[in-house]
């Protein structure tokens, strides 16, 4: 099949990001002294905005590219916009972080853009090889980002743990997709789905016994990436040790992209086996919510607490995956359906909405932590936040908003996101799962509200160094706050768009 210009248009966001990433490396290689990082930051911001524009323009070019390797459908467009917007916001926040940290290096931005390239391919790939490469591009960039503060023992240790367990998980994922290839004879997701369905109808297949094993291995691999229990052991250490901003990035955009792979592999390729993988999702959802929330209760480091909280949040999203498994048969085959085919199933819309809100509120919370932590990230414990309401009312207010949204208080995006998940669980008659999720939300209230209490009702402890004002940071954090509030009060726009 000849390649046409259209093929390149459909991966334009990735092309733009790659070009700008390479450009930053060249500029940074030549730069000396004070200009280091400054030009790179500007380039990264321009690049991510251009890529975002290209991502939005994908709406006009739905379809497949490069012989079916890349699929531009509503899910991939949606997540392109989400991820690229996140990258733009992280770039803004990074301008403040790199300056505060005192070692501005433009490579930070290049790695950020390269990670986004990987995520872009993760969400639009319809081919397991491309999925694997996308996953690795984003993972390897993230490993290096974690080690950004390379003279800090905690930062490098976090990077090491992330690298080792990440590669370990990748090997599982890879083994899983290899078995899937062997059993179906293809690496294209729709082709696998059809091949497996066809062979099942024809009375079993020769290597059919490999499929449940393959599904389990893929789930282990992706479970690590989205930090779902029982594969969450690395999360607290990595999230605590990595720079707060990097944690904010890998816990949101990277996680969202991994969830899309989970959705595509299980929903498109393994649809016929939903009875089996329903239980994977069910068990992982309950374990993640419970272990995450209970683990968060006794943390004194805010970063570590939010790490456990993000495990719990992954659990809520997995509830929606269990809902999808309950109703696996959409009217149309996603491989052939019009663009919105993949959204036809119940629960998928809830996942998209939840991931959007989660990205905004979690990134926002880590942005505030990064700012309060200040140079060298010394101030990340709960007691450092005591009295923040008096010292820095703006920061405290923003943190309160993000925490309340993470908890799921009405008029924040987090409330509606949780509501849709619970609603879809009830509709699918997964009453037990919904009740566990509700109980967990109550447990979570304790540790989220504790931070708010510390900020407003405790006297300040010790001296905090002054926090220099930063327009870039304010703009970035404001974006997160606006999204959280907008989706909490006027979710109609997004819901309408999702329904389309």
């Amino acid at each position, binding site marked *: 099949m000849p390649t046409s210009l259209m093929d390149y248009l459909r991966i334009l966001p990735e092309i733009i990001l790659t070009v700008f990433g390479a450009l930053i490396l060249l500029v940074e290689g030549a730069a000396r002294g004070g200009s280091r990082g400054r030009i790179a930051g500007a380039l990264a911001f321009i690049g991510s905005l251009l890529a975002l524009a290209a991502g939005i323009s994908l709406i006009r070019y739905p379809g497949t590219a490069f012989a079916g390797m890349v699929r531009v459908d509503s899910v991939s467009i949606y997540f392109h916009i989400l991820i690229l917007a996140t990258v733009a916001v992280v770039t803004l926040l990074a301008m403040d972080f790199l300056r505060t940290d005192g070692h501005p290096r433009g490579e930070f931005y290049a790695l950020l853009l390269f990670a986004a390239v990987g995520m872009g391919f993760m969400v639009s790939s319809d081919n397991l090889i491309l999925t*694997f490469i996308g996953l690795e591009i984003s993972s390897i960039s993230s*490993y290096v980002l974690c080690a950004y503060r390379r003279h800090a023992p905690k930062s490098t240790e976090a990077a090491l743990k992330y690298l080792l367990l990440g590669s370990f998980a990748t090997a599982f994922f890879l083994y899983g997709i290899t078995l899937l290839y062997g059993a179906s004879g293809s690496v294209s997701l729709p082709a696998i789905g059809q091949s497996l369905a066809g062979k099942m109808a024809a009375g079993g297949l020769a290597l059919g016994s490999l499929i449940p094993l393959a599904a389990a291995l893929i789930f282990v691999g992706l479970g690590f990436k989205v930090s779902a229990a029982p594969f969450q052991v690395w999360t607290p250490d990595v999230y605590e040790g990595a720079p707060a901003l990097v944690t904010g990035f890998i816990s949101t955009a990277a996680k969202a992209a991994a969830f899309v792979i989970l959705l595509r592999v299980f929903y498109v390729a393994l649809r016929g086996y939903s009875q089996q993988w329903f239980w994977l999702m069910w068990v992982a959802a309950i374990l993640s919510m419970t272990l995450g929330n209970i683990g968060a209760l006794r943390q004194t480091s805010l970063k570590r607490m939010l790490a456990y909280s993000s495990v719990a949040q992954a659990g809520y999203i997995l509830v929606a995956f269990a809902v999808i498994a309950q109703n696996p048969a959409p009217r149309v085959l996603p491989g052939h359906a019009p663009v919105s085919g993949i959204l036809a199933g119940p629960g998928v819309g809830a996942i998209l909405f939840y991931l959007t809100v989660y990205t905004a509120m979690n990134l926002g919370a880590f942005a505030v932590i990064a700012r309060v932590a200040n140079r060298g990230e010394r101030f990340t414990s709960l007691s450092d936040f005591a009295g923040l309401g008096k010292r820095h009312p703006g920061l405290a207010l923003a943190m309160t908003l993000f925490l309340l949204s993470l908890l799921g208080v009405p008029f924040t995006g987090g409330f509606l996101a949780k509501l849709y998940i619970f609603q879809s669980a009830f509709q699918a008659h997964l009453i037990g799962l919904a009740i566990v999720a509700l109980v967990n939300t109550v447990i979570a209230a304790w540790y989220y509200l504790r931070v708010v209490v510390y900020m407003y009702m405790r006297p300040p402890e010790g001296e905090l160094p002054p926090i220099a004002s930063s327009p870039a940071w304010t703009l970035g954090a404001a974006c997160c706050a606006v999204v959280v509030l907008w989706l909490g009060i006027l979710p109609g726009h997004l819901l309408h768009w999702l329904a389309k």
Partner: protein
Amino acid sequence: MIPLSYYLILSGILFTLGVAGFIVKSDLISVFISIELMLNAVNLSLIAFSHYLRDMTGNLFVFFVMVVAAAEAAVGLAIIIAVVRNRQTLSLDEMDLMKH
């Protein structure tokens, strides 16, 4: 012809050895080698499937797995050097700055 199952069983054994090495070993380099063993076990499966399906995709995939493994190794070595400079140790048992 050697049956496909022989390759798959050998690949499974190698992969399991890799997993066991990853869990049991406390030396950083050994753990790293275990991961490489796991990836190469997968490569063996891919080549075997590719041959039995008479399909080139598996061969192609192996190239990408090799390249990705090399990139991972390069970044891994760099991070290990950074860790050793900070901590002066290669033992995973001593990586406990964040235990609570």
